[in-house]
């Protein structure tokens, strides 16, 4: 009996409070830690930016048209230069983050929740319901998503809510298909059968056993999707059926700066960089989350503490 008992060779840490454990796990992945800091910064810009800099971002100064970046001659607001109407790039970036993040986050959250739940149900119930859900996914996928968006937004008002809805629906199939495929595999596992034998309801099986196993995959996809949605939103804004000026988003800034690429590269570059860094941070954080949420993988974050990874 002795030989068998000694094999669980993982050190048992003393119980700590939840938040401290999460912070500790985050600290041991330095990339994820920096990514989290950056995202906190972006989100606080989105929340407070328009309040603090709303006026600055729209005030024109024609003497500073296409003012180049990286000088402090006209104060810190112009450190990233100015746009074609002499407005501060930094202020505009910070203000634009609100619309950008709100639209992208809402669209992705909508797609993930609705698509994920539909996929879970399709996989778990199967039958005619599963068939309908999957054919629905096929129909959405077979249409070019931008085309749907253009048609819908042309017919309805190009309001933010409509934009979110359209972007969300066009991104839904990927969550439907992924979660259905995972459910089909997971529901055959013996631990699910064991739960049924205990008398667990379908609701419990889905939300206690199946969903937690599917969720990490969906969040990883969502992080990637975030960038796609930001770009799709900018394309629609560029066509004039997305966010309407004078409202601004990063995507719209990229689209507007495109004309000045040969004379003032910074007009398109900085909003593009913001999109890229946000997406990158989300990806780093989601891959960290996937490891941290999986008990069989968590040791990867627990072991290298005190040693540089």
């Amino acid at each position, binding site marked *: 009996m002795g*030989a068998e008992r000694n094999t669980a060779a993982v050190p048992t840490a003393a119980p700590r409070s939840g938040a401290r454990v999460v912070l500790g796990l985050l600290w041991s992945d330095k990339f994820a830690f920096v990514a989290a800091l950056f995202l906190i910064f972006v989100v606080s810009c989105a929340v407070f930016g328009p309040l603090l800099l709303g006026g600055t971002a729209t005030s024109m100064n024609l003497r500073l048209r296409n003012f180049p970046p990286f000088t402090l001659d006209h104060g810190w607001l112009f450190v990233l230069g100015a746009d074609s109407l002499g407005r501060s790039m930094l202020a505009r970036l910070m203000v634009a983050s609100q619309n950008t993040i709100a639209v992208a986050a809402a669209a992705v959250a909508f797609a993930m929740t609705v698509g994920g739940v539909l996929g879970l149900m399709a996989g778990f119930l199967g039958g005619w319901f599963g068939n309908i859900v999957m054919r629905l996914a096929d129909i959405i996928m077979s249409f070019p998503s931008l085309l749907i968006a253009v048609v819908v937004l042309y017919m309805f008002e190009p309001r933010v809510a409509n934009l979110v809805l359209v972007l969300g629906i066009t991104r839904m199939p990927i969550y439907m298909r992924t979660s259905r495929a995972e459910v089909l595999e997971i529901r055959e596992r013996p*631990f699910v*059968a064991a739960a049924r*034998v205990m008398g667990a309801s379908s609701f419990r099986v889905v939300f206690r056993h199946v969903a937690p196993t599917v969720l990490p995959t969906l969040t990883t996809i969502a992080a990637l999707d975030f960038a796609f949605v930001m770009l799709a939103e900018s394309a629609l804004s560029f066509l004039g059926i997305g966010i309407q000026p004078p409202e601004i988003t990063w995507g719209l800034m990229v689209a507007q700066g495109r004309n000045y690429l040969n004379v003032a590269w910074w007009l398109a570059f900085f909003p593009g960089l913001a999109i890229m860094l946000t997406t990158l941070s989300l990806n780093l954080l989601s891959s960290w989350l996937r490891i941290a949420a999986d008990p069989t993988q968590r040791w990867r974050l627990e072991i290298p503490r005190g040693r540089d990874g």
Partner: protein
Amino acid sequence: MAERAAPILEVRDLAVAFHTLAGELDAVDGISFDLHRGETLAILGESGSGKSVTAAAIMGILDSPPGFVRGGQALLDGVDLLALSEGRRRDLLGERIAIIFQDTLAHLNPVYSVGWQIAECFRIHRGVGRAEAYERAVDLMRQTHIPDPERRARDYPHQFSGGQRQRIMIAMALALEPDILIADEPTTALDVTVQAQILDLLIELRNARNMGLILITHDLGVVAEIADRLAVMFHGRIVESGSVGEVFADPQHAYTRRLMSAIPGRAPPPLRVATKVVGAAPLLEVRDLAKHYEVTSGLMRRRTGDVVKAVDGVSFDIQRGETLGVVGESGSGKTTLAKMLLLLEPPTSGSARFGGEDLFTLKGPDLLHLRRRMQVVFQDPFSSLNPRMSVAEIIAEPWSIHDGVVPKAERADRVVELLDRVGLAAEHARRYPHQFSGGQRQRIAIARALALAPDLVICDEAVSALDVSIQAQILDLLKSLRDELGLAYIFIAHDLAVVRELADRVAVMKTGKIVELGTTAQIFDRPAHPYTQALLGASPLPDPELMAERRQRRGIGIQMVKNG
């Protein structure tokens, strides 16, 4: 017998280690053995003892990194395999040493026909033409006794049964006429009757070709059946070696002795007086239970009219506190039977009454209440526990499904109590399933099954995936739980010895039917049905003399095969 000339393979002080998080870990720690032509050397050990790593190191297929050979030699006719360059070694292997594995489906390419795959060996190594290579492949399939080889050579791996796939693997391994064949758990995944045939084939081919055979196994019965010499491995060392007769008759090392005494069913268990009340209604009455699957074909799922009868009219009773063993080979319907009783699959026809209530018509709260009285322990302890839940959450889950059984405040204490009951410690409650060994996980699964204080526990191959010594511990645990809690078991297994150890009565299943049902003593000592007799005759017993006698009767071991 084998001439005592120089051995064909000499392994000297072989040491293999793995890089792990906790530093270097010695998997094989300085082992030495010899192999002569025409003899079978069995390397016996439990999982993690280093037996497969030894084979991998000799064959040069060690997972490297993290594994690496730390020292020692493997001399093939005096040439050290471990010191050769990659290219030279590859030339020698395959030509001189071949290996077969347990998992045949994983080692055959699913997109080529088996004839093509065997022929490939000839085309690459011998440079013979396509047609001739194919012809030779068919001939090899004939030698490994695959019926109708001309036609079957065009079939794909999934179209063969497990035993036939192992024959194909053997055919492939023998294509280049090696001097040494290493068989790594070749029959572990097979049914006993098929296992006996494959072992016969290995012996026949060894004798015909005068090969040396290294048999890696955890099964003492297999060792007794075909090995000449035996090396027992434990924690990376050979703790005992010698002729099979000697070691079995008089094991020297403490580990070997423990292994021998752990074999289930070796000594007939003392007659248990089952605490059953005579005349009382049985706990479970099963009548004419059947599960048929209609075969459909084509895009429209058209019914072809063919019906697969997975379970075909099964009837039995179980009293309170009684253990019914259900034995049968794969495809006999024993797992389907369990699934129907657990209400995981609806039956086609038949009835089952549990505690007087009709199992298949209950609904809602009545069904939920009944669920409490019947629980299950599955075969695979790795997938039957949710990897994302801690042990405490796993064991407490039944209580959150069934309100009011155990109040929330008492759950933590009850978890500790249950852990203690199955031989685990209180601090294990916070850990996750992957931090436990297979035997420990099975204990957790048992604790979960006990959480609702059931009357009946269905054990579906509950000890089949475990090492012999762990198996013995779990069987002891099941026995003591039965005696103390008055549990009834339906104990499903393919391993007759395990069933003999635990069951009061035994049902033998074949193609969906119970062919024989009787007390354990009746089934094992006076089997009436020919299939039961065949099953008992095929299962290897850890007794070399008995096995030699039995093989003699089957006509193997006598030189009856042509040379070449």
